[in-house]
């Protein structure tokens, strides 16, 4: 009797463990593996087992239907969840996918138990040790390839850059503009920032030193008489040339046709 439903009992056990693992909030490969089976395999596998309890398919055919039907059930569940107030969230997905799996498993267990044709689940992979070793080596090489590709992107020889911005006053603080710098260069950079109203300098920072990825922000007070504010950024290793430049046109009027 147990041989007939061993696979379904395993699916039920793994589904229950998956619920615990996912609800625990852990973020690691264990959760990803449980999620993979819960989303892509179990719902379809158990539904096919329930539908074709007397005349099971070969394993490869069952696998095709298991994945295809799991995807279909998830998509249909997604449509259903959309119309529900709780929407498509982690908890609602867990309930939907686990419900389908557990319900179909129960149905399959009942149907198989009474089936005179179904004897036991057979899975004959018959790998030898050298074959297993080669498979392991294959996985290792694939990870090396992915590592190389990722490393290639990380080490991409892109020229660095610096962002400079000047945002107009927000409605809740109409007398201050916001200026900011972000260093996306490849090295540590020392900057000088000059803010003027076109003629006179309003504010001046001589040495803003930022490491790669670091950001700096400050407020600029605006006078009602100011029509224009310019912010010019210099690199202190090249102080003569403006590196970045932004401006705010205050009290701007449309000059449209």
């Amino acid at each position, binding site marked *: 009797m147990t041989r007939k439903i061993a696979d379904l009992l395993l699916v039920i056990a793994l589904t229950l463990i998956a619920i615990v693992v*996912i609800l625990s909030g852990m*973020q690691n490969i264990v959760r*990803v593996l449980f*999620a*993979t089976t819960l*989303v*892509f395999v179990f719902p379809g596998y158990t539904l*096919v087992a329930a*539908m074709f309890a007397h*005349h099971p398919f070969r394993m*490869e055919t069952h696998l*095709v*239907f298991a*994945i*295809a*039907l799991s*995807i*279909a059930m998830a*998509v*249909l569940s*997604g449509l259903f969840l*959309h119309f529900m107030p709780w*929407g*498509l*969230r*982690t908890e609602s*997905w867990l309930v939907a*996918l686990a419900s389908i799996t557990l319900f179909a498993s129960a149905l399959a267990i009942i149907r198989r138990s009474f089936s005179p044709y179904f004897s036991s689940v057979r899975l004959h992979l*018959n790998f030898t040790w050298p*074959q297993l070793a*080669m*498979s392991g*080596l*294959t996985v*290792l090489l694939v990870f*090396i*390839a992915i590592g*190389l*590709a*990722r490393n*290639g*992107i990380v*080490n991409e020889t*892109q020229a660095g*850059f610096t*962002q*400079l*911005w000047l945002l*107009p006053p927000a409605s809740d603080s109409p007398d201050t503009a916001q200026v900011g710098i972000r260093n*996306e260069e490849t090295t540590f950079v020392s900057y000088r920032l000059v803010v003027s109203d076109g003629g006179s300098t309003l504010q001046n920072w001589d040495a803003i030193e930022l490491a790669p990825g670091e950001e700096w922000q400050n407020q600029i007070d605006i006078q009602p008489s100011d029509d*224009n504010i310019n912010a010019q950024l210099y690199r202190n290793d090249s102080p003569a040339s403006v590196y970045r*430049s*932004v*401006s705010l*046109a205050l009290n*701007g*009027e*449309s*000059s449209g*046709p």
Partner: protein
Amino acid sequence: MATQQMLIAQGQRAVPVTKAKVDTGWGWLQPIMLFQAFALVLVAIAYTENKKGTPWATGLFWLGQVMIFAPTAYRVSLTAIARKERIGLIVATGLALYLVKVLYTPQHFLFHDEFLHWRTATDILLTGHLFTANPILTVSPLYPGLEIITTAFANVSGLTVVESGLITLGVVRVMFMLALYLFYEQIGRSAQIGSIAALLYFGNSNFFYFDSQFSYESLSLPLATAILYIVLLQQRARGRGFIRLLILVLPLIVTVAITHHLTAYVMAGLLLAWSLVAFIAPRTRRQSLNIGIVAILTFVIVAAWTRFTGNIAEGYLLPVIGGGIGEFIALILNEEGGRQLFQGAAGLMTPFWERIIGILSIIFVVGVLPFGLLEIWHSPFRNPVHLKGIRVLTANVLRAWYRYRNNALVIVFAGIVVLYPIMLIFRFTSSGWEIANRSSEFIFWAIAFVLAIGALGLRSYRRLPPQLWTAGFVVWITVIFLGGSVAGWPHWARLPGPYMVSADARSIEPQGIAAATWAGSYLDPQDRIAADRVNTLLLATYGLLMPVTHQYDNLYISPVFLSSQIGSNEYDLIRRTDLHYALVDDRLSTALPTVGVYFEAGEPGADQYIDPPSLTNLTKFDRMPTISRIFDSGHIKIYDVSVLNRDP
């Protein structure tokens, strides 16, 4: 197995084939998988080196492809290997080719269409609901199958959309390979035909990159293949019952209908044609009822979903189809010159040897298709003289002949392959190229099968030495595979490399991503922003803003950027789109657009640019005193143009 025991009939003679000893184990599967993994390492090196401009990187990339594909081609050509080795090889090779795409960009989406669906998936994750408007592909939220399954996995696994998308498509690829093999095996009643046809399917021009990217067809096509397999299976269902198979297939049909419009239409059409042929053709009428029921249900489901979406796909697909047919007719009537083959909009030519492979692959396909058709149509039952001759044949041989002419789907396939030469002519037109390219994955359902039986038929007709046939077969099928890759993806986009202007994946780089991320952090998501083609993708995904697009706004914003001044037309565009910000990338002034457009397909001047836009035109906002330049990162500037949006 039928093929292994098959006697080959040639004219009135029956030629016995020595019954080979069939291996029952995994055979060479593991060594070949190891070899393919090594090839993947070479591909990863090729990608990294191409970014540095190393000249041999492209050669290494192609070597990797051959190393992945050719060993499998050799093994499946043999008669005496086990079915499970064939299945394993097809799955392993399909997965390895998917990993070639993953290695291109293992941490990001980089291909144009991936951004379109990434936005929809992100909206689902953020809102917990479907159908949020997507400005960069308005049809995408209404066909959310891929995004639903991806976000389901993202929610449950805790991974990002990108990681979830890559794993989802990996699982789907395994299912696709199995379904493809089983489908062909079921039609051909032979493991060898199944594996060869599945491998030939890899030669369609969209298999390699297009149907590996995070886009709706990458899910719908495998599901449609599984549906075809189930429908085929129900013809021969023993004890499984039509109703149960119908219950199995219905959720899949609904999923395809809400995942991808084009696949759904093609699938409905194919099923209708299949049931019609089954009804008309002699000896297949009893198949027609069940297929007809599935076909009608498919048609109803697809029509219902199309209606639910407001028939949005029509406006998306019809201009492409209409334009292609119009250009095709004009080409036939000699009213206009054709598109220059192997040449991009910016004048970039495909390398010489890739052109040779591309042409050779077409010759190889067209050359063998007639033999496949002959295998289908040349029936010993048709001619009484032949009938006399075949009485000496065994029941297995009779079944072997019977399997083609009495299978309505094979007859439909025979009809579909006739479309292939027509699609080749479409490739000579600009709009028609899109139709030819997008149809290849569907037409290849038929072509792969007809080619497989044609190639196997050639072996018996010509009585070639087995080693020579095997060597020729491996070269033939590998060229078809490589030719498909060459035809389906532009050579400059095949490997990651240095920045190019308006070149989709080759234009995505850190400065653009950082600007879009900044915009997403500091600008109001409700304020409209406009940018060029590539920065629009980044603003919609990394920034989650609402960029102006022709699809969403029904106008082309490009004159606002490319004109020398803001005139009445540009004011009108700004006001109609309620434009608040304009993002200018000054690199547009450095080269012609690689894909033919700077902003969107169909923009004024599309595909006909002679010179890049001038830097003076692009930076005209700097000379307008009422415009604020609120952001500057070197090449990219963002202007607040809302003042132009007000009434004067």
